[in-house]
């Protein structure tokens, strides 16, 4: 712990306390929205208008600007969910449990978007909406894992117990993450290989790469915004008998 400056430790201690966290989210929310609008605006302008059509796929490739960032988010959010779930499991930090369960619907949404837009991209390019190849199947399993987490949490009344159960399920499901990532390399399938996350040079032109990265950042910021909204309601419900929530309720009048 001596490696971490005192101010940082203090910050995390304060943030783990529900009323402080709630007040903090009020302050950062407008900034997050501004950053999100700017990133999305420039990303879409660059991707849909400035970037040229693909020499093989024409304009259909423009689905990439939501398909790939969504697929990245589906994996990223799963890892956040599993890690914060594990932190909640080990140290019983309430906020970590809440981050884990609040991430699940957002991750499920991004997984759905990745599958849905992939299907709409596959139809004109592969000639089929769906194939049972390794990448698509493992991503579908990811969607079921998210839905399993949401269902399990809803089925257990005691939310602290529910958080434990959900964390264990999420941790077991982590085995699926590397399978999704490497599926296009391990199995020769219809889905194309990675274009951006390769160790050598990315095989995508810079005029297409920049909007893609902007959209990836935009989705990251969106996740923060949506996560904070979910955390707020989850905190209020869990802490409804606490003094700070009662004070908040009276403020609303």
């Amino acid at each position: 712990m001596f490696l971490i400056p005192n101010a940082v430790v203090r910050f995390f201690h304060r943030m783990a306390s529900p009323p402080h966290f709630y007040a903090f989210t009020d302050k950062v929310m407008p900034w997050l929205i501004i950053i999100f609008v700017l990133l999305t605006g420039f990303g879409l302008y660059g991707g849909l208008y400035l970037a040229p059509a693909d020499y093989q796929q024409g304009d259909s490739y423009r689905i990439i600007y939501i398909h790939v960032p969504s697929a990245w988010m589906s994996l990223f959010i799963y890892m956040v969910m599993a890690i914060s779930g594990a932190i909640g499991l080990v140290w019983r930090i309430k906020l970590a449990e809440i981050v884990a369960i609040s991430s699940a619907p957002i991750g499920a949404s991004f997984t759905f978007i990745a599958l849905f837009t992939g299907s709409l991209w596959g139809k004109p390019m592969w000639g089929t909406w769906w194939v049972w190849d390794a990448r698509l199947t493992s991503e579908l399993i990811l969607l079921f894992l998210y839905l399993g987490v949401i269902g399990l949490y809803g089925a257990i009344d005691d939310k602290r117990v529910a958080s434990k159960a959900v964390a264990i399920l999420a941790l077991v499901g982590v085995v699926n993450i590397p399978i999704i990532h490497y599926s296009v390399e391990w199995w020769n399938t219809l889905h194309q290989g990675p274009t951006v996350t390769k160790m050598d040079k990315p095989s995508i032109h810079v005029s297409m790469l920049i909007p893609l990265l902007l959209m990836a950042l935009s989705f990251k910021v969106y996740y923060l915004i949506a996560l904070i909204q979910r955390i707020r309601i989850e905190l209020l419900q869990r802490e409804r008998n606490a003094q700070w929530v009662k004070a908040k309720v009276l403020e609303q009048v």
Partner: protein
Amino acid sequence: MSLDQFLSMGGYGFYVWTSYGVTFCVLLANIIIPVLQRKQFFVKALKKQRQSL
């Protein structure tokens, strides 16, 4: 480039715009649902507090 040309997306308009449209709706729903839930929570909690006074 004309607006028509832009919207047609070289003949792939249906696939591209359905993708973007559905994505937009899903992402919007993920914001609206918790915000509505919060409003509902405050309305209910306020009623309860008034009753107990």
